[in-house]
């Protein structure tokens, strides 16, 4: 049986020709995401906002209206009630209560009491205001730190243009993924943040593979135009890019469909992020090298080494 090649062997797509289109598309996505982020804002989960979350199972199908009336009258501010999964699965979320940690505790006890014995509480989470804001800070900090570390690593391994281009592409992925969360209104919690950082790692991974090839070809084909060389690099690695993205997506789709409600938002972020990460490493990161005026400057000493590489 002949193995299936997802990408034809002699693929030659002129990505660089339409790079202006990619720029326009990416830039507008980033801008829209940015604007939405500052106007509409993220739907932060209790991890960052502080508050209370309860996952309950009612006896028989849940009567959401009755629950809403019951809990709404407790005077605890906004109560979000949402049915999910099975008809008797309900998610209850309370906003952060005014006052300190004790006030949150009291609210949790009030709600638990109001729910009565008929429902079983499958999960309860309470995040005090202090922890919430700490998590937010730590989250932002970790995104910035990992961006910086990745940039340093790429800079050490390649020329600076590669480092900047890869981080720009990475930021592009992160911003657009965050934008998706703003648009969809899906809750943004700790797990989502983890997903976004993973997307970052994945996207960089993808980009590095293409960059590696560009570096190799730059030594090999010294007379080739940069756009042509970039196209050749992208096309020769295209099969791998598609294969890896596809296998990863396969695994993630299994997780999305069968992994349960608790990690659905998380896998959703990963799936979208991997799609956008694949796009960006092909259509954003490599063309950016032209923008940053990547030039071949091979010091005299390396001349012979390159010849050797060619000879292999």
């Amino acid at each position, binding site marked *: *049986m*002949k*193995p*299936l090649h*997802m990408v034809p*062997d002699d693929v030659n797509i002129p990505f660089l020709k339409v790079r202006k289109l990619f720029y326009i598309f990416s830039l507008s996505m980033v801008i829209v995401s940015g604007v939405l982020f500052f106007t509409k804002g993220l739907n932060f989960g209790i991890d960052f906002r502080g508050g209370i979350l309860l996952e309950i*199972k009612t006896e028989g199908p849940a009567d959401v209206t009755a629950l809403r009336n019951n809990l709404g009258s407790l005077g605890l501010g906004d109560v979000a009630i949402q049915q999910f999964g099975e008809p008797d699965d309900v998610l209850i979320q309370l906003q952060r209560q005014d006052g*300190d*940690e004790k006030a949150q*505790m009291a609210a949790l006890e009030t709600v638990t009491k109001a729910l009565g014995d008929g429902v079983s509480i*499958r*999960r*309860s*989470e309470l*995040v*005090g205001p*202090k*922890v919430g804001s700490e*998590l937010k800070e*730590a*989250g932002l*900090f*970790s995104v910035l730190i*990992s961006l910086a570390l*990745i940039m340093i690593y*790429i800079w050490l391994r390649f020329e600076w243009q590669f480092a900047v281009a890869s981080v720009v592409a990475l930021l592009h992925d992160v911003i657009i993924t965050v934008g998706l969360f703003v648009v969809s209104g899906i809750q943004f919690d*700790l*797990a989502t*943040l*983890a997903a976004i*950082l*993973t997307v*970052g*790692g*994945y996207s*960089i*991974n993808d980009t*590095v*593979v293409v960059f*590696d*090839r560009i570096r190799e070809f730059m030594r090999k084909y010294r007379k080739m135009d940069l756009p042509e060389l970039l196209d050749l690099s992208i096309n*020769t690695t295209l099969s*791998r890019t598609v*294969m*890896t993205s596809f*296998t*990863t997506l*396969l*695994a*993630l789709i*299994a997780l999305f*469909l*069968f*992994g*349960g409600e*608790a*990690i659905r938002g*998380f896998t959703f972020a*990963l799936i979208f992020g991997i799609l956008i990460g694949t796009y960006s490493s092909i259509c954003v990161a490599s063309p950016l090298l032209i923008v940053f005026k990547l030039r071949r400057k091979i010091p005299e000493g390396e001349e012979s080494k390159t010849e050797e590489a060619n000879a*292999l």
Partner: protein
Amino acid sequence: MLYFTKWKAALVLLVCALGVIYAAPNFLPKGTFPTEASWMPGKQISLGLDLRGGSHMLLEVGVDSVIRERYDSLTENMRDALREARIRYRGLRGSADGASVTIVNDDDVEKARSLIAKLDPQTVVGGDGNHIMVTYNEKTRREMVDRAISQSLEVVRRRVDELGTTEPSIQRQGEDRIVVQVPGLNDPSRLRDILGRTAKMNFHLINESKTPQQARETGIPPGAVIMPGADDASAGAPQEYLVDRRVVVSGDNLIDSQPTFNDGRPVVSFRFDAAGGARFGDVTSKNTGRRLAIVLDGKVISAPRINEPIMGGSGIITGQFSVQEANDLSLLLRAGALPAPMKILEERSIGPGLGQDSIESGEIASVLGMVFVVVFMAISYGLFGIFANIALMINLILILAVMSILQATLTLPGIAGIVLTVGMAVDANVLIFERIREERKIGRSIISSIDAGYRSAMSTILDANITTLIAALVLFSFGSGPIKGFAVTLAIGIITSMFAAIWVTRLIVAYWVKYRRPTELVL
């Protein structure tokens, strides 16, 4: 690249074999192996609270109040010293930041400073002019905090142990926080009740010169204070008591406490140590006929009249208790008081049912994800795809083995990390196989293509994985609970997948080439 020395091949096989041995206990019933030696196989991966159900609480110890107490007592000593030396002062007070006083006469300032400095060698005497500010030096402050935290840890441990759950974990986090994790607890509110209370019990005499009502109107007598009652108003007990500020017997001397019944009502018995018993006997014989208030965390539980001296060093506390409350109170008294009040900053509880559901859906998702990837790899790369799939299995076994050895905790996001690794693990092999395809296309021989494929893919694999590893490590160091679980499996998965993809498939391919001598490469 295709040549393996014998010992190198043996090493790769040894690692795989060790992986199988260390991962195996996870598929056998618990306790199949003795688990004394830490390096011996037989340990299982421990499941996180989100998978087996349980409660997680992040508590903050109010260290400020401990420091405040120290400054208060320092203030008392300063008062005595200044009085004895007949130095006039005003504004003597203690706070969490230090003890301060203002000396009235300029001439006394020097003398006052040296007197105060002598009180406690660990203090720093500052302030300017007539104003003197005394603070503990940083080392002492740190010691106070450390002591308060370690005492709190001890008390929390005793209290949680009383709940009778298995394997609770109680750890310090950061400067003044404690993380409590209790697996398999059905009712988090019980834990909340037990941890949320300081449980400082003291005995005070009731001041009977006035009723609390009168005291409010005409002024509180010196040395007395109004304390609220512990019971709800509905119970019919008085709401306030006027008590002497002085602690006549402290709860620190308690050695035992049990819930019991008196006239059919739940009560709590207590017993003092020898010193406490003697002191209790002394107080009760000198104050027979007066009322003794039993004060818990600043609230009066009850104030029985002392009918006769109590010499045995034991007694009972009556109050408006339910059976559960009597149980809890005796538990708290047995476990001892916290040195400082604690606040619950974060609480996450998962019921056992949900945990079980998560395990099941995690299993289904992992298996399906695997099947998808395995089938797809076989379709795409034929025989080489099967080689990669063998490496993938070994990779999974190695992840389980490493997690068992490190005793890492598997959480739901951790399962997601493994599934993601399954998808990404094939990447290294994809890189290599694609490279081999390319080399073949240029017209190289089979062996030289395979060789070149491994050689040139290597640096790419390293670069690509190291960047992902960076992200995983950052996640690990900044993340809290659930994120950490994800980062652990992701990081382990990256490392094992590199081993599996580079060494294991290369070994398989090397032997395949050696013994089959392929004439065509179907890839």
